[in-house]
């Protein structure tokens, strides 16, 4: 397969939603149906032009990819196959439970998607209303059952915690019910109130209580405990999976492997360069390829080491000293001696012969450690 070129993770961004959720600050547009066809054609063109790069994983995210007809999504995976995506390769599509039914799920599975990431967010309707989700808990449960029936054997569900007014007991119920649905993979994200989003505004105006960060920390610890006892491996700060079901595509990000992101505001990382495509939909479909790039930076030297160390440490198994040294010629424990010894002293980090990894306390305070590892002059 070598002659078929460098293997990359392929991310495709579908920036459309039926409506925006109240907490979301991603690039996404509600409505905009008239753009769909042209946008799809641009994406297909870009996939065809990937060569000599060859996709080894596919991740179609959004937005809400499933606002699109299954046929569009099928064209994407077909194009990816033509560009070299193997039959056994991980191919994920994100789905909003309110936008899928048995037929669409079956079509998606038949077209070759073998991993479904379901934006459940919560198993409680009051939380879903607060977040402005367009589905109910019941719909999410149904979507999951339908996905199983359609033949999906690798399903992720997203859960959000740390909501305004959410108690620890309520979160426990939420999570326990989600586990009853037996997903292979679970991502638990702490709500972050992004300035300008309606939810953040409501908190700012005092219409909703400010989320308590200490309580969110308790929720995180509870999630670690419940998920571990349910047989899930905690493999990244916010991600858990049944053995063998860690997301291969996402692992590419955390291992500093190359990836290509197609679609508005999508990031790529190839040959030590990270670049982003424009977030402007109109420019994206009108402008020639070269002008779709809105931002680019070189990740080399101290910065490359920092990113590798930071992303490696976000993995629960930690950073392999040997692998890091093999790549950069320096032991990370020597490179970050000051930060690591401080963090170890604070009980945030464990350092042994082969690895450096966060403690539970450290996982919650990881940014404190990363900020101390930053090279002095980045970029």
């Amino acid at each position, binding site marked *: 397969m070598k002659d078929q070129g460098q293997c990359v993770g392929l*991310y495709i961004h579908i920036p459309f939603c039926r409506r925006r959720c109240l907490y979301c600050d991603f690039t996404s547009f509600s409505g905009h149906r008239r753009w769909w066809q042209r946008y799809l054609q641009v994406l297909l063109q870009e996939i065809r032009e990937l060569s000599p790069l060859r996709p080894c994983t596919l991740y179609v995210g959004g937005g809400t990819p499933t606002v699109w007809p299954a046929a569009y999504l099928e064209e994407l995976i077909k194009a990816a196959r033509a560009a070299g995506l193997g039959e056994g390769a991980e191919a994920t599509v994100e789905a909003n439970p309110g936008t899928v039914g048995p037929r669409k799920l079956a079509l998606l599975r038949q077209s070759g998607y073998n991993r479904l990431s379901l934006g459940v967010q919560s198993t409680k309707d009051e939380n879903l209303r607060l977040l402005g989700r367009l589905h109910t808990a019941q719909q999410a449960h149904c979507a999951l059952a339908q996905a199983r029936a359609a033949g999906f054997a690798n399903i992720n569900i997203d859960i959000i915690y740390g909501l305004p007014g959410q108690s620890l007991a309520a979160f426990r119920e939420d999570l326990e019910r989600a586990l009853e649905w037996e997903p292979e993979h679970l991502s638990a*994200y*702490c709500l*972050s109130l992004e300035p300008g989003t309606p939810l953040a505004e409501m908190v700012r105006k005092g219409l909703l209580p400010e989320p308590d*960060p*200490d309580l*969110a*920390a308790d929720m*995180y610890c509870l999630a670690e405990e419940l998920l571990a006892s349910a047989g899930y491996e905690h493999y990244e*700060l*916010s991600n858990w999976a049944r053995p063998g079901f860690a997301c291969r595509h*996402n692992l590419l*990000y*955390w291992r500093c492997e190359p*990836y290509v*992101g197609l679609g508005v*505001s*999508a*990031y*790529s*990382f190839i040959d030590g360069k*990270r670049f*982003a495509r424009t977030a402007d939909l109109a420019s994206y479909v009108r402008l020639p390829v070269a002008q779709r790039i809105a*931002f680019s*930076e070189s990740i080399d030297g101290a910065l490359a080491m*920092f*990113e590798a160390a*930071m*992303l490696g440490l*976000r993995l629960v198994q930690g950073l392999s000293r040997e692998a890091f040294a093999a790549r950069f010629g320096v032991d990370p424990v020597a490179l970050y001696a000051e930060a690591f010894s401080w963090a170890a002293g*604070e009980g945030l980090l464990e350092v042994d012969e082969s690895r450096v990894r966060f403690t539970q306390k450290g*996982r*919650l*305070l*990881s*940014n*404190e450690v*990363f*900020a*101390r590892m*930053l090279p002095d002059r*980045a970029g």
Partner: protein
Amino acid sequence: MRCERERIRNFCIIAHVDHGKSTLADRLLERTGTISPREMTEQVLDSMPLEREKGVTIKASAVRMLYTAPDGKEYVLNLVDTPGHVDFSYEVSRALVACEGAILVVDASQGVEAQTIANLYKALDHHLVIVPVVNKIDLPNARPQEVAAELVDLFGFSPDEIIFASARDGRGVDEILDAIIKRIPPPRAPVEPTLRALVFDSHYDSFRGVVAYVRVFDGVLSRSEELLAMCSMASFEPMEVGTFTPAMSPVSELCAGQIGYVATGLKSVRECSVGDTITSARRPAREPLPGYQPAKPMVFAGIYPVRPEDYPLLRDSLEKLRLNDAAIVCEPESSQALGFGFRCGFLGLFHMEIVQERLEREYGVEIITTAPNVELEVLTRRGELVRTNSPAELPPEGEIEEIREPWALVTIVTPAEHVGSVMELLASRRGVSKNMEYLDPQRVMLTYEMPLSEVIIDLHDALKSRTRGYGSMDYSLLGYQPADLVRLDILVHEERVDALSMVVHRDDAYRRGAAVVEKLKELIPRQLFPVAVQAAIGKRVIARATVKALRKNVTAKCYGGDITRKRKLLERQKEGKKRLKQIGHVSVPQEAFLAILRTEE
């Protein structure tokens, strides 16, 4: 230049603030033709913009008028201006020593006020002849006869020496000029031939150096003679000698009895300070003139630049301000929390505000000022007497035998209906009542002794608000008395924050300490460990709060583009940490100290 002493009159105008002193001065300038009405901008004497804005005279200045009396003789009238605000009331003395007489101006509607009394007594102490004037008789609510009766009853003036005037419409101005000529004596005869001139004010001029305002008592001050400031021992060749007309107008010499200026070329007002005697360098006088106490700062505070890199700018700006204002004292000081700055002394809170404002407005330095305090005397257990003007430098409690604080004699005039409220205010400020006297059925004069620290903070404002603006006050320093004072320290994680230490009365310590601790608790960012914020007297903690440990600082999502965003976020966090001040192990943003100091004000 005439040297006939008999034709010279040196006088000043003393009044309570707003009783029309400046307007009367303007009228005199106009009537004597010193300034034509066309040239007259209102209130010529207040030459600093800030003075105009605040409506008070900050620096004394002087003006020379030529007046042809009805008898046909021409006289030289030197009017020495006096400052109007309470903070500068002691500075009135500088003007008084240069004069033989004073016009006492009292507002016909307001009557006698605290500063009227205080300034009158000062003038009498200097043996000045007083010309009482009831001003503003044109006002609809004027009650000139009652006010005149007050002057008669309180101070023993005879009714026929009181002049009724309106500086606004010019009524009575001729009578005042006549009284100046007839009642105020000419300058005394010289007692020795050698030059002795008293410096009663000065300002710094970048071309002429220190310009000393002088009253010549003996001999002749000549442009061509080398001079000597007797106290500082600085000698200089005068660059210019002149009089104020009111602009500075050069003359060849000033003779005994005259008032004018000498441009010394000296670089610092300290080399030719107020109260010094200028004499001939070649034939110096044996004795200086009896000077008077130079300006003594009463209020002290630390002044720091908000941005540490502004320290040199602050240093240079203070230096420039001090060229002109000998009353500001300052010494370099450093604080763990605020960095490098200065401990400065001021005449009062108002003076301090003016300096703060000038630093920010004229020099563009953004500054933060620590809580103002007075100078204390500390008697140590070893029997030493230490003076300190910085709470952080107070010896440890165990070494202190006794703390003494300065007390002031406060004179207050208030409408009778507010007297209860005012007495309550004074009692809450530890005031001790000494005397109470009805000026008339509606107005009361209160005399209190109280700690200076209670006076300087905002007694003047508090009095104004309790009397709907009608109360007035004046104060003078009495001396030191033992006090039950303690140093209240603020500790963050067991480390003392020097900039927040304050000396407070023991009874007040708990309330002040608890307030600062509560506020600081909200301002200190959470650290990885719990941080105790305490207020303590010596080793005894009197208030305490805890900043809970930070438990969570994590980015939930870190995929593709999140990596760049997250790194930028971390860079901002790191940049933010650089601006933090370290108090032991605890990182505190400077803004926290600023916020505390601002609320303390």
